[in-house]
């Protein structure tokens, strides 16, 4: 097949995204994660396929022999830019992963072009098919107060772009606990427990497998959140050490993040075949014993 006029060869079963990357062409992705079936929701990865009326999502469309792909046409650039603008107009993106931040800039996205976002408000129970009157002075946003309901998680849904990764990680792809789902519809859709009950009342088992796949910082561990709020979180000063969990005998690999000689976060490599980036509550949060009460 051809990508931007240059021939690329990939194995059967590869996606267009795989093909583009194999051809050295960068494509932005948000909802796509290496350990998950494409959710196909963010649409930022769309490309032009000759013969196809609409643009196609490169993450979930299988590559086919003879395809002519254009990743940089005016249409593609326009869609990519508008999609990023739309996301930025409704959502706080400043704690997003590097790829999102880079592409916002690269696409020339003007996230302010739809007006100043509405301030945070507590959402009421969802009424699918209905919405409040349309504000004239603001752009509707997803901003809502931060949810801090326990000592481990912080859920800051003002940053949520509804990429489904947390839902899929909690659900069918990995953890199979299904504590959260998308509730409501359309712009009012939110990640929610049943009846929006607090996380400790839900089925959540605090594995944190949602946190590790969140691309925008909507879900974080409490330690990281607190450090970010007080301004002491500094990824450039952090080291990551690969090791194995100290609890049961499954042998989950851990990436231990340290800053100033202290552990600040633990996660697991997404490319490790035992964990695929997943851990349980002990592995992800149970490390505090190492540095509590042992310094004397």
């Amino acid at each position: 097949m051809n990508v931007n006029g240059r021939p690329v060869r990939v194995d059967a079963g590869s996606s267009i995204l795989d093909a583009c990357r194999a051809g050295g062409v960068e494509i932005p992705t948000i909802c796509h994660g290496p350990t998950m079936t494409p959710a196909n929701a963010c649409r930022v990865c769309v490309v032009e396929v000759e013969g196809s009326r609409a643009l196609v999502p490169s993450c979930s469309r299988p590559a086919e022999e003879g395809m002519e792909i254009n990743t940089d046409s005016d249409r593609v650039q326009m869609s990519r830019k508008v999609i990023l603008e739309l996301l930025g107009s409704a959502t706080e993106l400043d704690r997003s992963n590097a790829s999102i931040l880079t592409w916002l800039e690269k696409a020339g996205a003007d996230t302010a072009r739809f007006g100043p976002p509405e301030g945070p408000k507590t959402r009421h129970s969802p009424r699918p098919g209905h919405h409040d009157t349309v504000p004239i002075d603001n752009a509707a946003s997803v901003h809502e107060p931060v949810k801090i309901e326990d000592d481990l998680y912080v859920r800051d849904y003002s940053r949520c772009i509804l990429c489904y990764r947390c839902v899929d990680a909690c659900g069918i792809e990995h953890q199979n606990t299904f504590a959260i789902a998308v509730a409501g519809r359309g712009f009012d859709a939110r990640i929610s427990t049943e009846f929006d009950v607090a996380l400790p009342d839900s089925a959540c088992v605090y594995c944190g497998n949602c946190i590790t796949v969140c691309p925008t910082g909507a879900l974080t561990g409490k330690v990281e959140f607190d450090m970010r709020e007080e301004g002491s979180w500094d990824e450039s000063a952090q080291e990551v050490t690969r090791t194995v969990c100290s609890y049961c005998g499954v042998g989950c690999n851990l990436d231990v993040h340290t800053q100033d000689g202290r552990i600040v976060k633990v996660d697991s490599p997404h490319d490790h075949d035992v964990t695929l980036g997943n851990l349980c509550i002990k592995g992800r949060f149970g490390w505090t014993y190492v540095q509590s009460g042992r310094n004397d």
Partner: protein
Amino acid sequence: MFGAGGGTSSYQEIESTDLIVMWGSNAREAHPIFFHHVLKGLHRGAHMYAVDPRRTSSAQWADVWLGIDVGSDIALANAVAREIIDRGLENRDFIENATTGFDEYAASLDSYTVDRAEEITGVPAAAIRDLAIAYGNADTAQICWTLGITEHHNATDNVLALINLALLTGHVGRYGSGLVPVRGQNNVQGGGDMGALPNKLPGFQDVEDEESRANFEAAWGSQIPPRAGKHISQMHEAMDEGEIRALYIIGENPLQSEAESATMRRRLENLDFLVVQDIFPTATAELADVVLPAAGWGESDGTFTSSERRVQRVRRAIDPPGDAEDDIALLSRVARAMGVDWPTPSPEEAWDEMRMLSPLHRGMSYSRLQELGGIQWPCPDDQHPGELFLHGRLWERPIVGPPAPFHAVEWAAPVDTLTIEYPIRLTTGRRLDSYNTGVQSGRYESPRRIHGVLDLSPEDAASHGLQDGQTVRVTSRRGSIEAPVRTDRSLRPGLAFMAVHFPDDTDVNALTVDAWDPKSGTAEFKATAIRIEAIG
């Protein structure tokens, strides 16, 4: 099993097996990431049978849950075997070519009809038959177990009963079929690999084998006692008899983790000399004459071996606090203090010495472990990729090496019998967010934590007039503790459960029995007879 002390299979195999039998394992909570692989198998279409006294969160995923009485596993396994043979579902070719002792085994099953098994286990005969048919017919099948099988006075027989099922049907030695004991601690497999067993040298080489011993003696430049040492329960006996007078404990909290804690306290207090090397001042350390502060996880380098025999590197991420040093440094210093000229080797130097002596590990250099993300033993040379599963040799024709023996085993009831005075069966286990005696897991704030409680069926709570949260006195033949009650639908009337994580609040091992398996030395933590009385 069959000469190698490890599970036969890799986690990835359970994703493509046809039948999963979770027998005495609540992996959903105790081994959550292993259970992820199980779930992948289920979503792919595998069926699952769960054998467990409680309807645990693991059992809730099963197509069929068999709620057996605690300690009746052998009766169930033997009845399944008999049913398989009666229906002609055994693998004749495998039995004839790769096993010995089938006839005696088959004869020993004579009395284990499904009806008798129903009487012993409490599980309806129809469900036992279903399990037999499913296991007998499956193309590939895995039996997974943990402490529900091994914390019994007849632990070894329990395991043999399961191995017999695999031999009967040929569900071992092929990709997707196997016997999977999931290990409870990060490096309990590695400890065994390294010879931290009374009868083994590193690499499961027999200490009573001249040739093996000679290799080690040559490398180490010292004499190795030519006989097996004592396993943990024998050590307890030796302490009781005054034969053992001093103890050096590294990273264990036996005062709280061993059965009959009152007895254990007496044993430790009666020692002439107790050294505890730990990262915390544990309850056991408080009895010690000398406490050596050790570096903990995250503060030292080395390897762990996982339940799929995978050796993986562990690394130091932060400095140990204060004067704490890692175990190698402490052991070397103790040796030097005792007048031996030991240098302090780096973990890699110690590892390299070991792998020259252990053929199972020989090809596992640190650089290869790093490059491959871990290697599954056996890995005899530095070109070898490691083995996904063991005992493929049993499918060679003729087989390579000795055939696998059947072992006829008889069911024996738990030692601590139920009587009118002690009418409730108490069993023990782990909860998702906690670990062992809570030394580590007690130091983070879990929103899911259930502190020390006695779990009862709603019926037993009601018949004693108890509400959730009300404190009861729990009494066994050995001791008595107080605990708040929590009702739990996963328990049937007559069955109670306590987690092992909160010895400071509810010391379940004040109740448990120190009856132990003569072969493995494991105590019968899983079967205690108790009575309960409301307080106040």
